[in-house]
């Protein structure tokens, strides 16, 4: 689904990513982990066209996507839920959803407004509210729901449960699990290893812009030393 090779990304003169290989297969759930500031968000943004890597290549759905504009990458079937959510504060809940609606890259239309509202019933009580009037949890449901309106094949979630009440976070995790079981590939950036170890097929750990671990979560669970060293947990 997505294969990135040898990505080097710079911000001015500071070298942020040092030659990272990263991949997600169709239907695979990959957890992207590491402490703050190791380059997780930069890696995602480099793969999705928001940041230009200096060298390296990205292929998405079999096509070269290295220099593609973010909107073209989205149209290849990739939905991105950025850190900090990105709800449009000046649009109502229903407008946030409707403006994003599109069939997937292969014309699939499994996700409709009705289905998104069924998945997040709280949103249907807030349809006419503006984005800025929502609580943090509602905003997160809205961004996730809005991403689904594009009928993605690959969902990229950056800190989707950050700062949410445990009950709301659980609801988000539940939805991610349903998506995984339905065969949607997912890249998840999150600090909750306990949940990810059950959810993810594979874990990737970054340290200072380099990949230091790439394997099944069971391997990490068995080696608390690695976890402590790389993640501090």
């Amino acid at each position, binding site marked *: 689904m997505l294969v990135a090779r040898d990505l080097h990304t710079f911000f001015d003169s500071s070298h942020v990513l040092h030659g990272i290989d990263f991949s997600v297969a169709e239907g695979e759930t990959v957890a992207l982990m590491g402490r703050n500031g190791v380059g997780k968000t930069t890696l995602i943004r480099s793969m999705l066209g928001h940041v230009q890597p200096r060298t390296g290549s990205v292929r998405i759905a079999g096509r070269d996507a290295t220099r593609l504009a*973010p*909107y073209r990458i989205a149209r290849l079937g990739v939905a991105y839920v950025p850190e900090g959510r990105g709800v*449009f504060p000046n649009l109502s809940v229903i*407008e946030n959803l*409707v403006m994003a609606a599109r069939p997937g890259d292969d014309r699939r239309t499994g996700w409709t407004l009705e289905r998104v509202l069924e998945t997040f019933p709280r949103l249907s009580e807030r349809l006419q509210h503006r984005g800025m009037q929502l609580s943090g949890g509602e905003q997160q449901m809205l961004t996730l729901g809005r*991403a689904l309106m594009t009928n993605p094949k690959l969902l990229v979630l950056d800190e989707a449960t950050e700062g949410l009440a445990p009950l709301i976070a659980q609801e988000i995790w539940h939805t991610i699990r349903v998506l995984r079981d339905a065969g949607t590939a997912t890249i998840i950036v999150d600090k909750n290893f306990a949940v990810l170890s059950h959810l993810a097929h594979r874990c990737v750990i970054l340290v200072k812009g380099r990949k230091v671990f790439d394997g099944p979560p069971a391997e990490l669970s068995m080696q608390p030393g690695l976890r402590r060293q790389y993640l501090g947990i």
Partner: protein
Amino acid sequence: MEWLIQILNSVQYGLLLFLVASGLTLIFGIMGVINLAHGSFYMIGAYLAFSLAELTGSLWTALPLGIVLAFALGLVLEILLISRLYRRDHLYQVLLTFGLILVFEEMRSILVGDDVHGVAIPALLDASLPLTENLSYPVYRLFISAVCLVLAALMYFTIQKTRLGMMVRAGASNAEMTQALGINIRWIHALVFAAGVALAVFAGMIAAPVSSVFPGMGNQVLIICFVIVVIGGIGSLKGALIASLLIGFVDTFGKVLLPELAGVAVYLLMAIVLLFRPAGLYGRP
């Protein structure tokens, strides 16, 4: 009855200004570009009305032709020049768009000359509505008001009720997120700019029969439209509409009641509004 005429004139002038100011405020609110050349589009519209009406023999054929040309001009300008300004400082925007004013005025001078022209009111609307025995009101001015109202409603509908409008508003608040949803923001920006140009050109075209067509007419309108954008609140269409009507009334009645103060009346209004609402009537501080 004389009052009624002044009121109708105020409304007509205000609504006409709104067509120009709405583009200015949208381009500033959505793309963050200060477009000094916006008044030139009004001037271009008036000269287009004059040239195309002579060429085709009727303002009715000139109008749609002019709109198409204006939209195309807007697209070309946005893609070649204006789109380079989005990430830049206001200084660059002011320099480039001021340069455009000079280019447009020079082109006008070369192509049509520096003479003052008039455009005939189309025969269909060349009539007057009798109000009293010796007072009447020209039908064409009512026509201008009606067309402006229809366009204002159309604009409101497009921006508030259609998916395109939602994308435009989304792009104004977070361009990157809009792109991440698969929407080509560059195309949206080009569309908004071209629509703004088309509106200003159209305003110049329908105004040509009642004002006259003269060099530098764009600059007058530009300054008054900036006053409107500031009073209404930058980026707010509703604000621009209310401010346009306010300016229409203040300017028209200022000339009647206090002719010696007419030149400063609109600026006085702006100062008073800003005193109480520094971000304008509907601006977000």
